């Protein structure tokens, strides 16, 4: 009992560090320092990732559960721990396969996926719709049964664990709040059904403060805006101090402005609480902004796993290249590709418009790259950017974008103007059309 009370107090202390969106850089740094020292042995957050967290069994030894106080000992929850920050869970998914039987046949949603998600990190599952990212999240939550493969939470094989015993917090795209309960009752729900031995009123207040909804506890979900509802859902998911937070397109139903606000808030909250987080999204900006690690899905397979920078800089497959940015797509036999001396066995070649080096006056070659002549055939006004369509002499067209300022100044091109350009062969990638297809296979 005293331990729980202490826990709550410390939790509240942690909250005050994240004093709203106007937090200064100093305060953030202080919070980061605190996190680092909380990891013990003075190691920074980076090495904390590599450190193996303790297994539930070890935790039970270190912090004996308060058995005998009414069913609490059934749960190996972190709420028994004295530490303020949750340790976060190492999630390992091995050879995960999930097939759905539909009326049209077997739909292979996930086809043999391996992912490791480090403790206290944020991992984004990114991909087009129907690529299996949401299915993987639901498999980790336990809302779907696996067809094949294992899921490990730390050293525990969680594959066959019931949903309610997995100690995860989940936030849904549709908010999924209990409409007949008030905001406070919603947040309290997890504490009640798990019969957690904490000061529930205090806990709810702390959580509402964390998501900046102080004083709205007596409202009903219907009386809140979409952004507020999703914040209630986040508070509810965090209430029983889960080790793993799963977000299924959490901002999908919200408009762009609220989306950005919530994104900033979410990152801060998750880092404060220290919970391992998996977020499913089809919004690339969201994934790259929030995540330490991005997993790109297509057709039930993983195309690439890496840090946001790695994925932007070094796309591993044609699909990723196409998915994470603008690309020009030309035949491998086109004039440009041949003059760039790019060799490929594939039928088509893509490269980013930003890799085009353009000259308005004729030069034979630049730094050993042969230039190719083309004509400006179209100019599209897209607000802050202007997009030109360039046509080569073999009628292959590529797109080239410049900012409005450049277009008005030095790089202004007229329709019909002759220009010369080259693309480095390193920036090109050969592919077959089926490599970038994202339509689900049935």
């Amino acid at each position, binding site marked *: 009992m005293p331990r729980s009370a202490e826990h709550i107090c410390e939790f509240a202390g942690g909250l005050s560090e994240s004093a709203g969106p106007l937090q200064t850089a100093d305060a953030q740094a202080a919070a980061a320092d605190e996190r680092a020292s909380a990891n013990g042995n003075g190691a920074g957050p980076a090495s904390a990732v590599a450190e193996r967290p303790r297994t539930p069994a070890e935790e039970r030894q270190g912090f004996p559960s308060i058995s005998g106080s009414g069913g609490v000992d059934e*749960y190996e929850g972190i709420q028994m721990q004295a530490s303020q920050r949750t340790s976060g869970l190492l999630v390992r998914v091995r050879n995960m396969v999930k097939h759905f039987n539909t009326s049209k046949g077997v739909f292979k949603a996930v086809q043999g996926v391996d992912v490791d998600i480090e403790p206290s990190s944020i991992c984004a599952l990114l991909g087009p719709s129907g690529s299996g990212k949401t299915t993987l999240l639901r498999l980790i*939550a*336990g*809302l779907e049964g696996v067809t094949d493969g294992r899921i490990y939470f730390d050293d525990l094989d969680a594959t066959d664990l019931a*949903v*309610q*015993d*997995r*100690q*995860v*917090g*989940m936030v*849904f*795209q*549709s908010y*999924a*709040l*209990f*409409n*007949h309960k008030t905001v406070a009752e919603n947040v309290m*729900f*997890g504490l009640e*059904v*798990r019969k957690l031995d904490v000061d529930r009123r205090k806990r709810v207040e702390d959580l509402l403060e964390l998501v900046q909804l102080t004083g709205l506890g007596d409202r*009903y979900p*219907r*009386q809140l805006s979409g952004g507020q509802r999703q914040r209630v*859902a986040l508070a*509810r*998911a965090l*209430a*029983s101090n889960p080790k793993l937070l*799963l977000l299924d397109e959490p901002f999908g139903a919200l408009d762009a402005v609220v989306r950005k606000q919530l994104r900033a808030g979410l990152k801060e909250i998750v880092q404060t609480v220290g919970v391992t987080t998996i977020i499913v999204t089809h919004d690339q900006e969201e994934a790259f902004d929030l995540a330490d690690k991005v997993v790109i899905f297509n057709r039930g397979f993983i195309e690439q796993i890496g840090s946001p920078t790695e994925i932007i800089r070094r796309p591993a497959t044609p699909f990723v290249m196409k998915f994470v940015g603008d690309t020009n797509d030309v035949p491998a036999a086109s004039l440009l590709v041949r003059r760039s001396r790019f060799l490929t066995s594939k039928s088509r070649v893509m490269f980013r418009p930003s890799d085009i080096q353009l000259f308005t006056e004729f030069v034979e070659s630049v730094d050993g790259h042969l230039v190719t002549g083309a004509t400006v055939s179209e100019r599209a006004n897209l607000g802050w950017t202007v997009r030109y369509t360039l046509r080569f002499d073999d009628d292959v067209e590529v797109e080239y974008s410049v900012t409005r300022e450049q277009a008005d100044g030095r790089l202004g091109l007229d329709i019909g103007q002759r220009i010369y350009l080259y693309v480095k062969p390193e920036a090109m990638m050969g592919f077959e059309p089926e490599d970038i297809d994202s339509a689900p296979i049935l």
Partner: protein
Amino acid sequence: MTLMLAAVSVPLNSVFGTVAAILITRNEFPGKVLLLSLLDMPFSISPVVTGLMLTLLYGRSGWFSSFLAEHGFNIVFAFPGMALATMFVTMPFVVRELIPTLEQMDLSQEEAARTLGANPLQVFWHVTLPNIRWGLMYGIILTNARAMGEFGAVSVISGNIIGKTQTLTLFVESAYKEYNTEAAFAAAVLLSLLALMTLWVKDRVEKAAAAEAAK
């Protein structure tokens, strides 16, 4: 007798109707369509035929007669038979009211409850039931109204034994036929009052539902 019939058939039909509706909407299985039309059968069969069917099954020369005689049960011309007939006739109401409500219900609420640590019973009690409660209430009211007013099936199976197996509705009919007009109308007024009460309850329920939706 009328009240007892309602008291037995309404709770039983509510519980089994809810369970059936949930199982039907949450599961895909072959023969689902057939089962759904079977559930509608009491609507399409004349209540008198229902009474005859039950007599045929449980009556003295019926299929189960030897079994029933052995165990000393008396179903036809007794309360259990009348309860069976009433339950059969009122069976579709709760299920039919709940299936659309359950089908349009957002399942993620239940999933959220499960991730928050609720066991299946808690999920039903805290999430599913509050979501379907107005539909369920409406189904119960309809069941109740029909249970009180049912004539055909009950009249065949009850034998209309005065003071024993006579419901209010049956009494109205027999009194009227015996030119006991005053008694018939008195009973009819009582029945109407019961019906009005049911309507009043229904009205209150609908208002409460509307108030909740506006909240």
